[in-house]
């Protein structure tokens, strides 16, 4: 047997095993998520959340919203947070050294006064310049922490230091939360004392109608790029995360909306400001902490659409976002490489971590290597085109089936897109995705890998268009 045939065999069998495992995982994810959503629906069909909202015995909850240069919308965003229906609520907005007049706008709008405040820094952060509380009792729930710029993770840690409640909800300040989002996301903590973290679904709000800080009409985005992301989010949140949550193997809770047991968050070390994937890294570290402690724990997930955000609508911004996500994934996986196939970490070490390693981190690289190999083989006329087309059709078809199953789950459960044209659009983006959106995401992810190699830090600029606002008269 020549070395060439050995290499070809390794590649052939390796890729065959890889693809087969991937397909098995995706089928399993589909089946498990179906069960998970069914259980969630049944469980919540008879829950009366109003009891929780008004009860003085409900646990205190602190919402932490970091803000950087958000002057244009910070007052409205704070108002939206203060209007959340929950008795024992504290809202902390962390002004992360904004260069604009975010702080001044908050001070003016809410009669904020700088107060002396002693804080025991359980998590190290950049210097806090001041703490502001409102002199108007109407806004007694609001605290503003003004600090030197240190990035999102640093701002969140600062908020955690000042939080007076045992449950903290970390959100992006420009997200739109559903009115009962807090009630729904904290319920798992009340049902099971082992819950250390609860994540929520993020949905795309581009071209949806927002009225006084509330989302009042769900629309499919008018342009293609956000539409691709709608499909992608439905697939990721309704299938992927639901299934991993059902297995108690979830490795990520979106930074845009997640609730945490504050004590565990602090004991695990808080958000890591050295990574751009602080949301994933924190969950991995909290889980690792609990595993090493040998205590039972759960990371839960609520599939209800609770939080709406604006997705990037141009390729430049999207590319930066996806590169950053990949960098975050690699950094989190590398930081906790000790768990890789380590049976001491149970499901986390034997399944969750390897899945992320092989099918999230390696997938774009393998895809890229595959493309390059194909090109080389084509140049040397070594491609059996009949096989190639059969394989390509199979893979693309399987991808279609998975996406279409996700759309089916969306229609069968939350049915946010009720118009036929919205469904047709979702089907159209499903057909186009493998040829437009997916290659772009693979390219951006590879760029993220390269950025790691070049030791690139930071988030890169992220600009948003803003929501489609209407005001009631």
């Amino acid at each position: 047997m020549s070395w060439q045939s050995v290499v070809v065999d390794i590649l052939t069998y390796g890729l065959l095993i890889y693809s087969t495992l991937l397909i098995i995982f995706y089928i399993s994810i589909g089946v498990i998520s179906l069960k998970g959503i069914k259980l969630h629906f049944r469980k919540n069909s008879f829950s009366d959340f109003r009891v929780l909202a008004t009860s003085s015995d409900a646990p205190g909850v602190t919402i932490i919203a970091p803000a950087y240069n958000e002057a244009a919308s910070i007052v409205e965003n704070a108002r939206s947070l203060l209007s959340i229906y929950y008795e024992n609520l504290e809202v902390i907005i962390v002004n992360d050294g904004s260069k604009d007049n975010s702080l001044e706008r908050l001070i003016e709008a809410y009669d904020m006064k700088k107060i002396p405040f002693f804080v025991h820094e359980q998590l190290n952060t950049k210097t806090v310049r001041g703490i502001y509380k409102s002199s108007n009792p109407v806004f007694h729930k609001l605290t503003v922490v003004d600090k030197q710029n240190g990035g999102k993770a640093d701002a969140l840690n600062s908020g955690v230091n000042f939080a007076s409640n045992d449950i903290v909800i970390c959100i992006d300040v420009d997200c739109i939360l559903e009115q009962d989002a807090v009630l729904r996301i904290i319920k798992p903590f009340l049902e099971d004392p082992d819950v250390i973290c609860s994540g929520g679904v993020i949905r795309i709000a581009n071209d949806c109608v927002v009225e006084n800080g509330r989302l009042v009409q769900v629309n499919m985005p008018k342009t293609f790029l956000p539409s691709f992301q709608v499909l992608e989010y439905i697939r990721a949140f309704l299938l992927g995360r639901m299934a991993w949550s059902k297995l108690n193997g979830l490795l990520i809770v979106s930074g845009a909306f997640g609730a945490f047991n504050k004590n565990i968050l602090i004991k695990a070390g808080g958000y890591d400001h050295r990574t751009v994937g602080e949301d994933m890294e924190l969950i991995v570290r909290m889980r690792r902490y609990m595993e090493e402690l040998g205590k039972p724990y759960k990371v839960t997930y609520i599939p209800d659409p609770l939080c709406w955000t604006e997705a990037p609508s141009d390729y430049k911004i999207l590319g930066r976002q996806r590169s950053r996500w990949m960098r975050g994934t690699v950094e989190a996986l590398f930081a906790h490489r000790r768990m890789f196939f380590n049976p001491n970490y149970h499901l986390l070490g034997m399944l969750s971590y390897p899945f992320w390693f092989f099918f999230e981190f390696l997938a774009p690289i393998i895809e890229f290597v595959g493309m390059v190999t194909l090109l080389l083989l084509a140049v040397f006329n070594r491609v059996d085109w009949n096989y190639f087309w059969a394989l390509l059709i199979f893979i693309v078809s399987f991808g279609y089936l998975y996406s279409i199953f996700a759309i089916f789950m969306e229609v069968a459960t939350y049915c946010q897109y009720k118009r036929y044209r919205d469904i047709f659009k979702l089907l159209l983006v499903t057909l186009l995705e493998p040829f437009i959106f997916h290659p772009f995401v693979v390219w951006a992810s590879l760029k993220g890998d390269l950025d790691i190699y070049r030791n690139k830090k930071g988030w890169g600029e992220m600009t948003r268009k803003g929501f489609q606002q209407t005001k009631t008269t």
Partner: protein
Amino acid sequence: MVVLFNVEVDFQKVLNTASAVIWIGILTVVLLIFVMLTIKKQREKTKEKILKSFRLLIEKALFYEPDEEGLDFKLPVPEKIHKLLRKRVFQQWLIDELVRARKNLSGNAHENIKNLYEQLNLFQLSLKKLSSINWNVKVQGIQELCIMDQSRFMESMAAFVDHDNADIRAEAQIALVHFRGFQGLDFLDTITKPVSYWNRIRLLEKVAFAPYQEFTGLARWLQSPNDSVILFALRLTGIYHIFNVHDEVVGCLNHGNESIRIESLRTLEDVYSEKTSKAIISRYEEGDLKLKIAVLQTLSKIGDSGNLDFLRAAWKNDDPRIKLAAARAIISSADDGIETLKKTVEAEPMPYQIIFEQLKAEAIL
């Protein structure tokens, strides 16, 4: 042909067949999506139409009064409604509407909703649900019977009070308290399964609406082998200021479960006596950080000037969280709180003096 693990496989044929199967799957799911969407839309339309008739009936029921006093509730129900109610799904829609209406109403209207539910024999559907094999249907049945005040079926619901399924037993416990008020809490004597925090909140809300009766089992519950029962009993003790179980609450300070130790301190804020401070302080030294802070918080609520020496000593602790809690307690325990704290803090270096500034500002705000 490809040789895979020494077996000749026509890989291309396999792939083509698999792709064909997948495409059949895709087309089926696409069809299902549109069928489901159409059914959902149609169902919404039908529901809206039928609910219109139901809502008209409910409106009539709200203001209905029998012709003569003492006569039974007998609302004239159109034949159309009777016809609709032959279908189980429509019965359920009406029950849902009645449940929603009853939750939001009070007085005569509240009672009339129940009367209508009984007049239309809808309780039979709810009752049937209790024997369903699906746990969620059982829960729904208990909830409906409870909201519609069907106390005659209480025993059937009571059977589920220690059920393996957390949602079923939670609903049954709520139903018992709903029907029997404080006496309904007797299930706490026997349950072996945990009462979740979520359900403890719901039970407290339910109890709050019941006419007050003296607790008979509180002392027993405070010594229950079921930790969640103790936690619930502690909250009841605090909320209703049941001073005669003070010693049992103090006994809970030694419990092996940290949550119970902390909750008992919180409870003592509401039922303290002259012995309380001493009992709490005696637990301070052996406690961990969380318990120490909780002790200081409780002493801050009790506000006994006799504790000042202890609090000054606590202030000397190196942990700033303990310092802050001790400072708060000093302010509330001394007659001239801020001044006493100022004197205590004066000797301390920065940054601890800022604690004084903070508490002073809090007092002003």
